[in-house]
């Protein structure tokens, strides 16, 4: 399967410069780039030069709204042309979004389009932030805050112009998404290995395991700005029953919808305690749980990290408590009647069983 990475960031934040640099690196050979530009006449693609074994496709219009189906169709098209050797045999796809695009619908398209199923896998989401204007942009433009909140990696650009990053900007980025590693691009250059590594599951598990999200625990209450976007984590000592987790996700999808920007979790499922389940969701769309072979460290507590907009942590916590209490009560009653507890959700099945 071909990893599809998303490069996002507000207008003028240095996406195209970064991409131009990356495409000249040998590590970035065999890359297909889809550039989305807002406006009738695209220009960015003229500014990017690809090596011989990479190539660039252009789409215009706002990727995040009316041309989502175009994105799926374009990816389908280049995959087909790759299969019949009409295009170079690329190993990855990078989508550079328009600076005004909300990345969430793009991620949803990549996760849910049936034509693309089994052919692509969602790679990393990288957001560029301008060290000179980034702070103002985050204050002014809600979509900019959302781009940062949804990213797996943040790249601070133009720090050479800003004489380093402003501490306030770093604070804002940490408040919005402290779990995302912050990388620095100098004159638009960055180590190619450091981003778009398609670490996928392992890197998500590492993020959840190494405690970087704990930073948010300390600063959650002091950074509830940016249109209410904030990050928080729930930790559970006891394993969570699959049904309780399913009910939690159902209620979150129903009541939060687009305000649940992203959920990442490593969970000890009561039915399969030896293997941690890694969950990943964008708004109401969730990947099927992926199962790690073993726990990455001795830490076996379930950790659920939420990036949300205007969703109180206390409500999510109360919701999880209530569904866990209800499932426990039902299970106890069923055990009492000598019946096996029902396992409701097919998506929760361990593929090895």
């Amino acid at each position: 399967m071909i990893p599809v990475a998303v490069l996002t960031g507000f207008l003028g934040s240095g996406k195209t410069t970064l991409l131009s640099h990356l495409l000249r690196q040998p590590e970035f050979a065999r890359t297909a780039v889809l550039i989305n530009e807002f406006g009738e006449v695209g220009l960015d693609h003229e500014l990017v030069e690809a090596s011989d074994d990479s190539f660039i496709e252009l789409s215009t219009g706002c990727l995040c709204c009316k041309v989502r189906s175009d994105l799926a169709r374009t990816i389908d098209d280049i995959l087909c042309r790759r299969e019949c050797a009409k295009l170079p045999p690329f190993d990855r796809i990078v989508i550079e979004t328009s600076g005004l695009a909300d990345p969430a619908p793009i991620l949803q398209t990549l996760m849910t389009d049936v034509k693309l199923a089994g052919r692509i896998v969602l790679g990393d989401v990288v957001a560029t932030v301008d060290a000179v204007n980034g702070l103002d942009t985050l204050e002014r433009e809600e979509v900019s805050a959302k781009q940062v909140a949804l990213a797996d990696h943040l790249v601070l650009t133009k720090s050479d112009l800003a004489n380093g990053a402003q501490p306030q900007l770093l604070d804002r980025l940490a408040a919005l998404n402290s779990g995302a590693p912050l990388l620095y691009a100098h004159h638009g250059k960055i180590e190619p290995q450091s981003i778009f590594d398609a670490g996928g599951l392992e890197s998500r598990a590492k993020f959840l395991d190494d405690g970087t999200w704990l930073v948010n625990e300390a600063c959650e209450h002091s950074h509830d700005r940016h249109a209410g976007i904030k990050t928080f984590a729930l930790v559970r000592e006891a394993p969570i029953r699959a049904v309780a987790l399913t009910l939690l996700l159902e209620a979150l999808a129903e009541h939060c919808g687009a305000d649940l920007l992203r959920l990442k979790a490593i969970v000890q499922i009561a039915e399969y305690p030896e293997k941690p389940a890694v969950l990943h969701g964008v708004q109401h769309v969730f990947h099927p749980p992926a199962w790690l072979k073993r726990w990455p460290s001795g830490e076996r507590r379930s950790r659920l990290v939420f990036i949300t907009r205007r969703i109180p942590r206390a409500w999510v916590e109360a919701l999880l408590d209530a569904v866990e209490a209800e499932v426990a009560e039902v299970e106890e009653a069923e055990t009492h009647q000598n019946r096996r507890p029902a396992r409701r959700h097919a998506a929760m099945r361990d593929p090895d069983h």
Partner: protein
Amino acid sequence: MSDSLQDSLYELLVESLAAWRIAGSVDRAADGSFLVRAGANDIRIERAPKHLPFRWMVTTAGRKRGALSVVAVLRQLRTALDPGYVPSNRVRIAVSPQVAS
């Protein structure tokens, strides 16, 4: 009803009003039921009788409806209290996996 579920549901109802920005209150009755008051609405949430295929009964404006879980209770409660709420989003499972297999 277990004490744990009783306490958890009460907390959830209180936090739900706050999360939905609805001014109101939640009271616990001696019989284990809950009364949610918000504006002109009085909503009663109680355990369903054992012979019914529900876990909860939710009474709104004199109409009693069954609910299968606390998640269903929440749905009914919000539908009654929040005119702008449309329970349209359902969990959707991605067709692509998290990692290449």
